[in-house]
C-alpha cells in the first residue's frame, strides 16, 4: 500500500525464489535486523531482556521447531518439551564433559542429540497416524523427563537435579549480561529461522507439506514417506533442542527436567495454533501473544484493578481467555494470526481495491 511494487520483477528463478522480492521488504527486514541487533541492546533494560525478549525469542524458536513437524509435515506432537529437555541436558553435558567445547558447538550437539531422540520417537509415525501418534510423543514426554530425573549423571549428580548454565563465553566475549544473553538468543534464533525458512522453501519443505496434505498421494508420486517424516522429526527436534538449551542457559540460567513438562508442550502447541500452523512468521506472533498477554493482563490489572480483582481470579480469567482464544482461532481462523497478517498484506497489496 505504502510501497510500490511496480518495476520490480525477476529475471531468474533464483531471484524469483527469494524471501523478499521487493526491495522495500528487504530493506525493511535489514532495518529490523539492525534494530534488533544494534539498537535494542542499548534501548532495552533488564526487565525487557530477561522477562520479555529472551523468552519471546526462545519460545518463537520452540514454536518453529514444532511448527516444522506439525504445521508443515502434519505430524502432531505433544512431546516438544521433552526434546527441549534433551537439548538442554545434552548441551550441558557436552559442555561439561568435553574440555574446551565451544558454547555454540555445545548447543549444536545438544540439538543433534535431541534430533536423534526425535527420530527414535518418530519411528512409529510410519505405522500410526493422527492422534494415535500423540501416544508416541507423549511417551517421549514422560520417558525423557523420567530418564533425566532418574539418572543423576545427566545433571552431574546435582543433588537437586538442576543444571546450571556454563559460562556464556563465545570467542572470549562474555554474553552473560542480560543484553548479552539477548544477543546470544537473537543470534541463534536468527540463524535457525534462516535455516528453517530455507528448508520449508526447498524440496524437503514441499515434501513435508505433501505428506501433510495427503500422504498416499505423496507416496504415489515417489516421495519416500518414512524418510520425509523422520527428517521432520529430526529437524524439528534439533531446533527444539537448541531452544531448550537457550531456555536453560540464556533465559533461566538453571533448569530441572520438570521445567520441560507437559504444560510446556501445550504452551508450544498453543503458540503455533494461535500464531499459525505452516507459517514461519506465525511462530513469532504466537510466541509474542503467549509471552505478552499474561504480562499485559497482570500489568493492567496491577494498575487499574489493584484490589478490585483478586490476582488469582485474574489468572483463572487468563486461562479462560487462552482457552477461548484457541477455540476462537480454530473456528474463525484455523491458520492463526499469521493468516490474518497475510490477509492484511494481500489486501494492502491491492489497496484501495477490494479484490
Amino acid at each position, binding site marked *: 500500500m505504502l510501497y510500490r511494487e511496480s518495476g520490480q520483477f525477476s529475471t531468474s528463478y533464483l531471484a524469483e525464489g527469494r*524471501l*523478499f522480492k521487493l526491495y522495500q*521488504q*528487504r530493506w*525493511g*527486514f535489514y*532495518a*529490523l535486523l539492525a534494530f534488533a541487533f544494534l539498537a535494542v541492546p542499548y534501548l532495552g533494560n*533488564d*526487565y525487557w531482556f*530477561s*522477562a*520479555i525478549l529472551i*523468552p519471546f525469542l526462545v519460545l518463537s524458536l520452540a514454536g518453529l521447531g514444532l511448527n516444522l513437524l506439525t504445521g508443515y509435515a502434519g505430524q502432531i506432537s505433544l512431546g516438544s518439551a521433552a526434546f527441549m529437555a534433551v537439548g538442554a541436558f545434552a548441551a550441558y553435558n557436552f559442555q561439561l564433559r568435553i574440555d574446551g567445547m565451544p558454547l555454540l558447538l555445545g548447543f549444536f550437539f545438544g540439538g543433534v542429540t535431541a534430533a536423534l531422540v526425535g527420530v527414535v520417537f518418530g519411528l512409529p509415525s510410519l505405522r500410526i497416524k493422527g492422534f494415535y501418534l500423540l501416544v508416541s510423543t507423549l511417551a517421549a514426554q514422560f520417558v525423557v523427563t*523420567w530418564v533425566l*530425573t532418574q539418572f543423576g549423571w545427566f*545433571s552431574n549428580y*546435582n*543433588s*537437586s*537435579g*538442576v543444571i*546450571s548454565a556454563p*559460562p556464556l563465553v563465545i570467542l572470549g566475549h562474555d554474553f552473560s549480561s542480560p543484553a548479552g544473553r539477548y544477543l546470544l538468543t537473537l543470534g541463534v534464533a536468527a540463524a535457525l*529461522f534462516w535455516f528453517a525458512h530455507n528448508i520449508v522453501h526447498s524440496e524437503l519443505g514441499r515434501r513435508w507439506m505433501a505428506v501433510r496434505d495427503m500422504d498416499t498421494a505423496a507416496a504415489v508420486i515417489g516421495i519416500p514417506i518414512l524418510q520425509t517424516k523422520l527428517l521432520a522429526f529430526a529437524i524439528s527436534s534439533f531446533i527444539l533442542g537448541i531452544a531448550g538449551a537457550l531456555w536453560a542457559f540464556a*533465559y*533461566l*540460567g*538453571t*533448569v*530441572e*527436567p*520438570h*521445567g520441560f513438562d507437559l504444560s510446556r508442550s501445550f504452551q508450544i502447541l498453543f503458540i503455533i495454533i494461535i500464531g499459525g500452523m505452516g507459517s*514461519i*512468521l506465525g511462530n*513469532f*506472533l504466537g510466541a*509474542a*501473544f503467549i509471552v*505478552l*498477554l499474561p*504480562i*499485559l493482563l*497482570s*500489568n*493492567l490489572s*496491577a*494498575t*487499574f484493578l489493584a484490589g478490585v480483582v*483478586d*490476582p*488469582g481470579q*485474574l*489468572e*483463572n480469567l487468563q486461562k479462560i481467555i487462552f482457552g477461548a482464544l484457541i477455540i476462537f482461532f480454530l473456528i474463525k481462523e484455523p491458520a492463526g*494470526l499469521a493468516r*490474518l*497478517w497475510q490477509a492484511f*498484506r494481500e489486501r494492502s497489496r491491492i489497496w484501495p481495491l477490494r479484490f
Partner: protein
Amino acid sequence: MMNIMKKPSVLLGALALGLILSSVSAQAANEQYFPLQSYRVGPYAAGGTGFFGGFIDYLQYVNLKEGGVNGVKFTWSECETEYVVEKGVECYERLKKGLNGAPAAATNPLSVGIAYATLERSTADKLPLITINHGRTDSTDGSVFPYVFPLQLNPYSEVSAIINYIGDKSGGLDKLKGKKIVTLFHGSPYGKETNPILELLAKKYGFSLTLLEVPHPGNEQQSQWLNIRRIKPDWVILRGWGVMNPVALKTAQKTGFPADHIIGNIWSNSEEDAAPAGTAAKGFISITTHPSGTNFPVLQDIDKTVLKAGKGNLQDAKRFGTVYYNLGVVNGILNVEAVRVAQAKFGKRPLTGEEVRWGFENIKLDDARLKQLGAYGLVQPLKLSCSDHEGGGAVRFQQWDGKQWKVISDWVQADRKLLRPIIEESSHKYAKEKGITPRDCAKES
C-alpha cells in the same frame, strides 16, 4: 518478516502503556519495599495463599502497630507466578527495581524452581533471596552464596532431624540399628535431593533404608504402598508434594499401614496435606519449623490489629493460624528483623538489598528476643552468620488429630555438624564451576 513487529507492536504498545502507567512514580517515600512473587492459583495455590497471606498480614501489622520499622513503613506488591518458573522470573525482573522509589529489601518466592532460576540474578542484583525452609541446601554456605538464605531449615537438616526424632522415639540413636525405614519421595529433584543423606545416615546408624519413588503428580500410589506393606517398615518418611500427600495417607489406610508411623516432611505438613485424606490422616505425624495455631501473642496481636480491622489478606479467615499462614508470619518476622538489624547499622532509612543482606547475616533471635516479638515457641532460636545462612536447623513434630495439628515434641535439632562438610563440598564444587571465590567469613563483621 520485515513486518513481524507490526502486529505485536499493537500489543507492545499497549503493554508499554501499561508499564508506564504502572510505574508512574509517586514521591519517593520513606518506605521499604517487598516484591512478592506470590501464587494464588494453580495446583499449589493453597500454599501460596496461606504463606503470602501471613507474610502480608505481618508486614501490615508492623505498619499499623509500630508505623513500620523506625518510621520506615513497609510497602509491597504482588505478582502472580502460578508457581511457574518463567513467571517467577518475569515477576522478579519486574519487581526488583522497587516500587515508587521504595527499594526492594528481599525476594521470597517460596518456590524451589523460582529460587534456582533467580539465584544468580539475585547475587548479581545484590538482592537477598530468602528461601525459608527450602531451597538449595548448599546455599547454607554463605561464603559462596552471599545473597541466598535457606532460613531455619535446609533439606539436609530436615531429614537429619527426622532421623534424630525416630532415634529418640526408639530410645536413642543407637537403637536405630536394624530398624526398617522407608522413604517415599516425590519423583522430582526436590524429592530425590535428600536421598544421599538418608543413605549416609542409614550407614551411620545401621538402619535399613528403602527409597521408593512416586512419579509426579502422585495420584496413584498403590504399588508403592503394597511394597511398603511387604517390607513392613517401622517408619515411613513421606517427602511429598501437593496431591501426593493425601493420596499417600489414603493409600496407606487402604493397605493397612498405620498413619502414626508416617512422618511427613516440611512440604507434607500443612492442613491442606492432611485434611483431604479425611479419617485416613488421623495420627499422621509431620515436622514443622513452627507450630500451627493462634496461641502466640504475635498472632493474637495480628488478629486484633489487622484481621479485626478488616485489613487481613486471607480470603478464607478460617485459615488464620494454619501451617502455611504461620510460616508466612514467621517469614515476615525474620524479614522485618533483618531490616531492623540492618537499620541499626546503616541508619533509619529505607535500605538497599545489600544492606538488608547484612541484616540477615546478623540476625540473632534468642529466647528473650523471641519473647519480645511475641513469637516464643513459634520461631526457633536462630543465629545467622556470614557462613551460616540457615541458622536454626531444628524442627518440632506435630500430629494430625483429624481436625488440626497438635505439636507433640519440642525442638529437635538436626546433626548440623555432620552435614556441614557435605554442604561445603557441594558449595565449593559450585564455586569452582562458576568461578566464584568464596568470601572469607572471618573478615566479615
